């Protein structure tokens, strides 16, 4: 989604500018920081709005595989119910990664094992967010080391 990609780019640039303004001579410029924050907020809102529409669109497409028009409308109805419920999760950036996975599971119709489906562009985790993976590995390492002792 072009809008989503542009929104993400704008957010990344805003974060970069906000970060570099901290080291700028003359101190923090309140006006500039405020404008950057406003741009980032509106870009974030549009990004998440675009994310939910693409996800619900993808779910619709998944349901259209059996080419019955009736079934798709019913299915999209149920998928849409899931959509709003996940919005509170989307609001918290940190949960976006886990949430995208949930949506994937819903798309597949829930096979019992967790399939690591190759994610499309729209459902990929935002790459400007801190990665949680490293921490988990560290925790598992320390746990195992404790056990040995």
């Amino acid at each position, binding site marked *: 989604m072009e809008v989503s990609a542009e929104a993400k780019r*704008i957010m990344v640039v805003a974060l970069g500018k906000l970060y570099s303004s901290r080291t700028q*001579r*003359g*101190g923090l410029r309140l006006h500039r920081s405020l*404008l950057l924050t406003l741009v980032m907020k509106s870009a974030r809102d549009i990004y998440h709005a675009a994310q939910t529409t693409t996800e619900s669109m993808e779910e619709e497409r998944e349901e259209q595989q059996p080419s019955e028009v009736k079934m798709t409308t019913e299915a999209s109805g149920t998928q849409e119910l899931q959509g709003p419920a996940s919005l509170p999760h989307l609001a918290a950036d940190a949960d976006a990664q886990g949430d995208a996975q949930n949506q994937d599971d819903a798309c597949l119709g829930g096979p019992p094992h967790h399939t690591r489906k190759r994610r499309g562009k729209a459902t990929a985790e935002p790459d400007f967010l801190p990665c949680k993976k490293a921490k988990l590995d560290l925790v598992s390492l320390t746990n195992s080391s404790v056990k040995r002792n």
Partner: protein
Amino acid sequence: MLSPIQVLCSDITTLSLEPEPFASYTEADIISTVEFNHTGELLATGDKGGRVVIFQREPESKSEPFSQGEYNVYSTFQSHEPEFDYLKSLEIEEKINKIRWLPQQNAAHFLLSTNDKTIKLWKVSERDKRPEGYNLKDEEGRIKDVSTVTSLQVPVLKPMDLMVEVSPRRVFANAHTYHINSISVNSDYETYMSADDLRINLWHLDITDRSFNIVDIKPANMEDLTEVITAAEFHPLHCNLFVYSSSKGTLRLCDMREAALCDKHSKLFEEPEDPSARSFFSEIISSVSDVKFSHSGRYLLTRDYLTAKVWDLNMESKPLETYQVHDYLRSKLCSLYENDCIFDKFECAWNGSDSVIMTGAYNNFFRMFDRNTKRDVTLEASRESSKPRAVLKPRRVCAAGGKRRKDDISVDSLDFTKKILHTAWHPNENIIAIAATNNLYIFQDKLNSEMH
């Protein structure tokens, strides 16, 4: 009104002494403010290095009728120095944000200059005579041997080479937590105001140890902050009225007679947003970068990123006139955001009769709009096109895909590092001062000079 503009003084490189066109300048040389005094005889510029340069107009000489009215350097001084706030571990820039002249009341001239935190009142006076013939001192100032003095004489004032002395008379400090963006002298000639991002303070010119807070828009919780003050100015005639602009594109007219703290406005000037023009950058481009009362006090001129608007004080719902300064940039907002140009703050100016407005743009272009004839012109301030006595050629920017004429500049070849943020118009005559990075250009209406 918009007759051909003639170069009055070709580019005066105020601080760089390099004559070559591609000489590099230091950041300290960048001009940050330009202001004529009330008669137009003096022109002051401030720069990023904290220096102020004052130009004086040469009186017309009858022997050379065409060399009348040129501006030459009158005085240069260091107004502000870089400072360090130890409590906050912040450096305070010495850049001069604004200069405002006081109306002249005696032989000396006074001006206010401000950086981010401190305002200073400077006295500029001339000395063209000195006393000679002291009894106890000789010509070089050494004390004479008393035994050699045989007679007494009265010291006499003898003419000397003109010397311009500048001295700081007042320092108004420690009243602003945020960065000062405007100062404005009141028509009562006794008080003035200084505005930062969230507060406006009222000062008395003679009192430096206290000021009165007249506007405070700081929210209790800074996370609720939605707008800041971007510019403020006193009404030219009514000493109780002032206006301030916000980052949301609104103007508030306040009356100091209503309350001590003017948080509640008398009038709110706001144009409803056009929902079809909404984009990621709507908030940034609607932020007002400058506000100026007309000389009559009847109108307000505001500048935001893409337009200049004239407001009638009696109509709050929408501006009277809207002028597109460089609408061809509307489709380029994303790249202008990335290269930071979208945050540039352009100033605007009225001519003496309030019939023409002027503002700067990119590529060293500046624009003038005639409010009566609705004609507008784009001119360029550059060394190549500014030989003395040359007439400036109108320029045109063709939008992408539009019909292109010879000499047109395409939007993609505009130089966004060459921006004209600061311009000033002589209070009475058609003489304009344009600051282009580190250079100052002074142009005059051709008709004006032919009349003399």
